[in-house]
């Protein structure tokens, strides 16, 4: 098999908020660095930063403070976040928002007096979410990608990373093996530093929000490489995903939080506004509570024709709904439903992985030269991510990774010789489906997504989780019998669908193992057999890594380095 070999100083995987910021900062730190950015889709167009509707949390408002934002993050995360990571996130967010405005040209919404407008977002004690109407992600990525396009960097668009390749002598990262999606050829990019910023994404669930390119490839590579993943049981479900049936890609996509906030009702298939049976805050309860309530209704069979529930807006007056939510009304109409006329069916939908690679405040990992940022990383959010902390996380740590990689290269940068046996193994894995006949990859992905939804989803228990573990093993056997009927490697989506399944299967197993291990309920993780939250003072996190072929689990204690349960950093 022919492999093209190229060399660079800084290699970045992923071109969302984390990847683009890393490229920008690495070049700012040292314009002479050769920077390469590789992305599974188009630069700035794939990934989820662009899809951010809500906004960006930052302690910039009068009367707000880094301490207050930090406490909201720790309490929202149910004391599970790694506190130094969360602190770095929140402290640096201030500078990053100013950078976005002053250096990149973003313009966030203003009050009539010309100062930044901060909107309220659930779970926060202060209005601190800066935004550009409900298209904040477009404003951020639009400006960021312009800056990166203007740089002298190498762009490897539509490149799928398939293996983080270690140095032959075990001294660190040597580079990354990729498939050029357009030509179907293999390319090994040797680099002094690599940043993992491919963006997680729980797309192994029947209903999910992330963009279609996200299939946990980065996490799967990290696990194989030997990195440890933390908090992987923490999968955030958004309560209001669009339900359009099994054969449409519109299913699972997010309808914005504001619909409930503004007074929308959740109504089950029997016409009942059911939230009063679950929470006194009704539809305005937090994401996790609303998702669990909707799921309970669905499990009891009180569903709409397609198996979800309705979101009702008509009582607010159709004109008012159209004026308040023009984007949502138009999107629903494009899909064939009238939002103001109560025609939209919804389901909770898998939205974000709080867990991910263990990394440090400078975005480094345990492997010299290998950095990570964004949704691929775990530690900042703990058991629950605050709306508005996601885009902060990717842009803050992406920028930090860019700075750190430039500093690392200045001090001890070196091109390491790759362990070529890893390259050979990875290619063999990717080539194998071409020698297999038959099988239906799409059917298997549907089965996987149903198992994860039904047994490792919003309400969990030991019996279901153990059953899921067994089922996943049979899927693994089925997967190895699925072939690719098309020999032409060029832009062969069917091949990539098949490779996506490898990553999704691997992370499904990890999520299941972590979910079994956490025998308490907190944040996004709810165990019906352990409905109470355990003792916060003795909070442990789940840590999963690969030993040989086997997943190993440990549960180290969370260190309360900045504040311990029952205390606060807020100075009254």
């Amino acid at each position: 098999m022919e492999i093209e070999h190229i060399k660079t100083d800084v290699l970045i995987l992923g071109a969302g908020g984390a990847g683009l910021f890393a490229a920008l900062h690495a070049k700012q730190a040292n314009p002479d660095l050769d920077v390469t950015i590789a992305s599974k889709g188009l630069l700035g167009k794939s990934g989820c930063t662009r899809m951010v509707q809500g906004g960006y949390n930052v302690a910039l408002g009068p009367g707000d403070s880094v301490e207050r934002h930090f406490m909201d993050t720790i309490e929202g995360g149910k004391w599970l976040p790694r506190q130094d990571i969360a602190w770095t996130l929140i402290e640096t967010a201030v500078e990053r928002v100013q950078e976005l405005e002053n250096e990149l040209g973003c313009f966030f919404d203003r009050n009539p007096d010309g100062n930044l407008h901060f909107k309220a977002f659930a779970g926060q004690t202060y209005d601190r979410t800066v935004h550009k109407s409900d298209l904040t992600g477009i404003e951020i990525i639009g400006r960021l990608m312009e800056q990166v396009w203007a740089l002298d960097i190498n762009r490897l668009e539509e490149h799928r990373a398939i293996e983080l390749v270690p140095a032959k002598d075990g001294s660190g990262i040597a580079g990354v093996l990729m498939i050029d999606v357009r030509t179907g050829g293999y390319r090994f990019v040797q680099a002094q530093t690599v940043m993992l910023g491919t963006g997680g994404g729980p797309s192994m669930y029947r209903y999910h929000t992330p963009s279609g390119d996200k299939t946990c490839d980065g996490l799967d590579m990290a696990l194989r490489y030997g990195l440890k993943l933390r908090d992987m049981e923490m999968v955030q479900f958004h309560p209001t995903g669009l339900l359009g049936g099994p054969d449409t890609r519109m299913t699972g996509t997010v309808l914005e939080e504001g619909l409930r906030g503004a007074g929308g009702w959740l109504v089950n298939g029997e016409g009942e506004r059911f939230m009063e049976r679950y929470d006194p805050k009704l539809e305005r309860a937090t994401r996790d509570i609303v998702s669990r309530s909707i799921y309970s209704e669905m499990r009891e069979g009180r569903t709409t024709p397609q198996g979800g529930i309705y979101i009702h807006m008509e009582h607010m007056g159709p004109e008012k709904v159209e004026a308040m939510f023009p984007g949502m009304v138009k999107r629903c109409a494009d899909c064939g439903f009238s939002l103001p006329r109560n025609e939209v069916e919804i389901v909770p939908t898998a939205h974000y992985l709080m867990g991910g690679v263990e990394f440090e405040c400078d975005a480094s990992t345990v492997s010299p030269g290998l950095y990570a940022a964004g949704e691929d990383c775990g530690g900042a959010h703990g058991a629950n991510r605050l709306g508005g902390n996601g885009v902060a996380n990717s842009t803050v740590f992406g920028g930090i990774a860019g700075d750190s990689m430039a500093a690392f290269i200045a001090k001890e940068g070196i091109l390491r010789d790759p362990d070529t046996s890893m390259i050979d193994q990875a290619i063999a894995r990717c080539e194998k489906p071409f020698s297999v006949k038959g099988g239906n990859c799409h059917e298997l992905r549907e089965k996987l997504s149903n198992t994860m939804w039904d047994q490792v989803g919003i309400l969990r228990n030991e019996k279901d989780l153990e059953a899921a573990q067994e089922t996943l093993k049979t899927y693994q056997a089925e997967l190895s019998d699925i072939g690719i009927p098309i020999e032409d490697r060029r832009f062969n989506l069917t091949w990539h669908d098949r490779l996506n399944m490898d990553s999704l299967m691997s992370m499904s197993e990890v999520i299941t193992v972590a979910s079994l291990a956490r025998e308490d309920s907190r944040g996004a993780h709810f165990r019906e057999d352990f409905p109470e939250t355990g003792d916060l003072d003795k909070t442990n996190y789940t840590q999963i890594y690969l030993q040989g072929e086997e997943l190993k689990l440990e549960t180290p204690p969370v260190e309360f380095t900045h504040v311990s349960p029952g205390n606060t950093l807020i100075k009254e």
Partner: protein
Amino acid sequence: MTTLRVKIWRGNENEEGEFQTFDVPARENQTILDVVTEVQRVQEPGLSYRFACRVGVCGSCAMTVNGKPRWTCRTHINAVAKDGEITIEPLRNMPVIKDLTCDMTEFFQKWQKAGGKFDGTITRKDPVATLPPSDLKRQKADAGIECINCAVCYSACDTVNWDSDYLGPAALNRAWTLVNDERAANRQEVLDKAIGDSGCSSCHSQGNCTAACPVGLSPSQSIHGLKRMSLLSFLGKGI
């Protein structure tokens, strides 16, 4: 209508392409992207296309549908099917990579040629500018700022089709938002680029861009604004 007859363009870079016809079951909730997906999953595993966000914010899935450029993830079949027939081709005015995917490199290079990036006057250490939303220049910038660079307008533009050097509506729209951004240090430089060779003066004001824009922006108005400003600049009035 229980079946859709779908004609899809198949071909590679530097190769002659041809249409291939598929019969696809019609469903109540079905977009053009869903139709293309179904063909790839069930009938033609070698079909190449591109998509990402599924909600109309990335523009990766734009294609030519029944002769018009569109976001396929946000186009319901009922909005376009004529007697149960749909024709799907790659976007025009850009080189095809394979089947329904095209190479957007030149589109983004032109974005840069039109001056499309902000240079600031202050840094990340400074507070953000105090700028009321009532500011007239800001309102002009805001009117064009929500572009997602999907290239639907660029594909719809006949001038780009005749003159491959023409910078095109999306790039010039961005230039217009920049020359109205009072925080930008490079407003004059952007204006010079936008009114320079193959810039706004090449536009024939046909308005295809505005008619096609899925966001509802008006690149033609932005280009008109640039032309006016170019005249004022010629008369010695600064921006």
